[in-house]
């Protein structure tokens, strides 16, 4: 189980992760403004991450996806340009 204070455990922290690593455009998710994000866009970002990480593309933040998102990693974006 994730033990870090900033571990990814749900939708909000997952969106921050997707924004940081290039799976979601920053303007789509701004925790300060409370902008609403469509369920489809979130699902799309999850599936893009799952594809990149070699996971089944369920479009859900399932256990294997959360586990991968909580794996220590490089801070460079996965999708550049």
């Amino acid at each position, binding site marked *: 189980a994730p033990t*870090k*204070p*900033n571990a990814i455990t749900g939708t909000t922290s997952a969106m921050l992760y997707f924004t940081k*690593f290039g799976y979601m455009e920053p303007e789509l998710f701004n925790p300060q403004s409370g902008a609403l994000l469509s369920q489809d866009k979130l699902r799309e970002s999850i*599936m893009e991450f799952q*594809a*990149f*990480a*070699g996971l*089944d*593309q*369920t*479009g859900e933040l399932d256990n294997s996806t959360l586990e*991968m998102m*909580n*794996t*220590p*990693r*490089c*801070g*460079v*974006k*996965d999708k*550049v*340009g």
Partner: protein
Amino acid sequence: FGTRARRKRYALQGSRWRVKTLTYRITKYPNGLLQNDVDREIAIAFKVWEDVTDLTFERSTSGKVHIEVRFEKGEHGDGDPFDGPGGTLAHAYFPIYGGDAHFDDTEAWTINSYRGTNLFQVAAHEFGHSLGLSHSDVRSSLMAPFYRGYESSFSLDEDDIKGIQALYGKKQA
């Protein structure tokens, strides 16, 4: 949805160095390791790329260099703060952005150990970015973004070799 067929391979960021000899300098060392050990691990991390291209890396202890290596904590001046142990381990800049590599000094950096985070492996990955490689979706490649734990016998994946040679060519005999 199940799995979807997808081409898996290395990715190039789009910039590269125009010179074959690159200099580097470690300007800030980690707290938990001896400087000589860090010097050695960083040198062999560069050698990973030197072995498969005509690039050579020279360590400098002063003056201007191509790649600066630093161990830092939290916010460290580039607007991309480190997040403490775990999470993000390090980051590096592509050639067009200067090539520098920063490592999170709150990580338990280790050498030849299954404990902590292996400095050599992470450094070799970061220097791939410094040379122009993006993340690969080939899980076994060095340029995959996730830390896969210490490997006692390390070798570059074919995907990494193809990627770096696409940028700098093959090593001449």
